[in-house]
């Protein structure tokens, strides 16, 4: 079933004397429960895509084209239908509220629960993201948690209302590789357990190939390639994607130095 259908989407940012195009004629579809990895370098438009889907663009932006949600009845509501995880979890959490209360607030508002039910739901969610509520995480403030723990709380908030689509925009870029691996495992598990679709935005080609069923590559606001991981990585059709793959440095890449 098609969850999301984007056609001929263009976005421009305007300032005092010029218009800067951020997306140019982008079109693709996402199925319910699908994992789509979006890869792009800085300025490719990948974050603009996330903001446009979530209707979170600043007022100075203009949008052409259409985003339809055949998988939903009506227009989506952020928090309820679409959940977000951003790079900086500290920026998405209220520094003055207990993290358990913040998760409960999402569940209470969108799922129409009582305060008490929402509290119980939040404790379940904390356990689901690997933060044992028995260990005092419910009443912790964001500053008392590590970066990885804060990102887990942000994930719990994002999935609290059981959305249809989870958008992760560079969600692990600020974390070191060890913690990144834990968070990726958590996201993969949450997506596998439910019919939650995932839009995973990253600049890291290898990460995209691990997280997606399909991969979409963006360059300077254009969607240059989209297809299964095997097709895009194994048989890239554009010089840009070929160059990205050739410049990837992995554990099997030949060393650039020879040591005595």
């Amino acid at each position: 079933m098609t969850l999301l259908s984007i056609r001929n989407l263009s976005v421009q940012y305007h300032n005092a004397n010029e218009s800067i195009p951020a997306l140019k004629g982008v079109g693709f579809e996402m199925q319910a429960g699908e994992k789509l990895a979006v890869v792009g370098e800085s300025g490719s438009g990948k974050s603009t895509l996330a903001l446009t889907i979530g209707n979170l663009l600043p007022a100075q932006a203009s949008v052409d084209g259409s985003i339809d949600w055949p998988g939903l009845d009506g227009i989506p509501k952020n928090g309820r239908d679409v959940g977000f995880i951003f790079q900086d979890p500290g920026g998405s959490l209220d520094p003055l509220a207990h993290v358990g209360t913040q998760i409960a607030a999402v569940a209470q508002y969108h799922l129409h629960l009582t305060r008490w039910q929402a509290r119980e739901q939040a404790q379940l969610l904390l356990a689901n993201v690997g933060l044992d509520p028995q260990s005092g995480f419910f009443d912790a403030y964001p500053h008392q948690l590590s970066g990885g723990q804060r990102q887990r709380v942000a994930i719990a908030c994002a999935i609290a209302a059981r959305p249809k689509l989870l958008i992760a925009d560079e969600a692990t870029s600020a974390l070191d590789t060890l913690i990144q691996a834990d968070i990726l495992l958590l996201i993969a598990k949450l997506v596998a357990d439910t019919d939650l679709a995932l839009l995973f935005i990253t600049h890291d080609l290898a990460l995209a190939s691990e997280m997606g069923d399909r991969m979409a590559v963006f360059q300077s606001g254009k969607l240059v390639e989209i297809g299964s991981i095997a097709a895009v990585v194994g048989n890239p059709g554009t010089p840009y994607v070929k160059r990205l793959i050739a410049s990837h440095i992995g554990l099997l890449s030949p060393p650039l130095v020879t040591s005595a």
Partner: protein
Amino acid sequence: MTGIVLSVAGLCKTFTRGSGLVAAADNVSFCVKSGETLALCGPSGSGKSTIARLVMRLLDPDSGRIVLGGQDLTALRGEALRRQRSRFQMVFQDSTAALNPRATVYDAVAAPLRIHNIGRRTDRACNVGKLLEQVGLSADLSARAIHEISGGQRQRVAIARALASKPDLVVLDESLSAIDPSLRLDVLRLFLDLQQRRSIAFLFISHDVALVRAFAHKVAFIEHGKIVEQGRAVDVIDQPQSALARAMIAAVPRLKEL
């Protein structure tokens, strides 16, 4: 043959956190030869950046010795230390934060020449131009403001600035993390080319094991301020012995072709 540029012995540094003490460097010893790259690899909070800052003498160690080309840096203070600073330079992760945004490219690269009194003042514009060309930038960029150039160009300016005083040692603190993947290989090749031509020793701070394997001659894995494993980068990473190195290698994303 190649001599030892940097030798660090028994380096210790503790910070207080709340009521407790955290060891950011715990009896750390290593050496780097000229023309060689040593990578310090560890998770966040392992102390790798603290060790970089100790080597740069931006922090004072509690104990231990840092010897650069036969000179004990730990014994130096004030003007005597400042005079030595031309010999060891650093390139930071975020070149936007490291450079004055209101300065021009010329100002940024000429500053170390002025501070360390290198070359004649009348030759300065010419020397800045040469440095920019060495890092693959056009000398015409000199007049542009730091905030007007792209991130990749800015990191190259930071590299040109670090090289201006012809240092023996350059500390690279996550200097490639903020660079787009398609440009990263170019910047890596630039570092290697400069290293070969000028026999610079690099101390490369990174948590990217794949990058370390490609770029560094030697690696030291660090956890809680202690070196838990060190050796030739390819050997250690292809056959890790410590739990930390194994975990960090397992966590590297693999490019999949199903």
